[in-house]
């Protein structure tokens, strides 16, 4: 099973849809609401998101080695099926 991390913001509807996608299918993932972290963790996590996605926008989904920027159901399905 590939490790899945979902970097999200609590205010972002596509982030919520990404959570729903995994929840509905009982897929285990680590969901991080970056805006709800404490300052230090937030800064570190944003740096990480920027490093892997090149942006400071959400959601960013990491499945194994693959990075998906934005909520793209088709892409998520493809990567999960690989």
């Amino acid at each position, binding site marked *: 099973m590939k490790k899945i991390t979902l970097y999200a*913001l*609590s*205010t*972002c*509807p*596509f*982030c*919520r849809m990404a959570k729903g996608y995994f929840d509905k299918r009982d897929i285990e993932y680590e969901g991080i609401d*970056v*805006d709800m972290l404490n300052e230090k963790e937030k800064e570190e996590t*944003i740096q990480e998101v920027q490093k892997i996605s090149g942006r*400071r*926008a*959400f*959601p960013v989904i990491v499945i194994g080695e693959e990075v998906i920027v*934005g909520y793209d159901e088709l892409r998520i399905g493809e990567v999960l099926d690989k």
Partner: protein
Amino acid sequence: MREKILCPVCQVSFLLREEKKDGDEVICPVCGAVLIMRMDEEKRHLERPPDMDPEEEIRRRMDNFAKLRTYHFNQMKNPLIEGLLAKRERFGDFYCPCKIDHVQENVCPCLETRMGSVEQNGKCHCGLFWKEPPKNGEK
């Protein structure tokens, strides 16, 4: 000669199409913001409507912007308005609900959207503004 006047939302200066007096409403032709004309000691400037309900302010702004660009909304609109209102509540302005930085260029409609990201990608990053209207039967 008419001078340009600064929009306090998108920070772009524009020419007024018609003469306005103190207290008149002005719509920014760049970002769609609803603004009020103020004349203080001969110097005129625009301000955001101080007494307008935040939800009304952002709804009118996005509706104006969509009309200016002929963009469309879909079922994402209301959740995004909630996100924008949460941003305003917590961080003081209508910052993009999908971006972490609370800076002027991320105030909705954000700079990348005003620079044409909808033309390029079919939608703005958040999915608020869309180039095409939602298809019938599409959820």
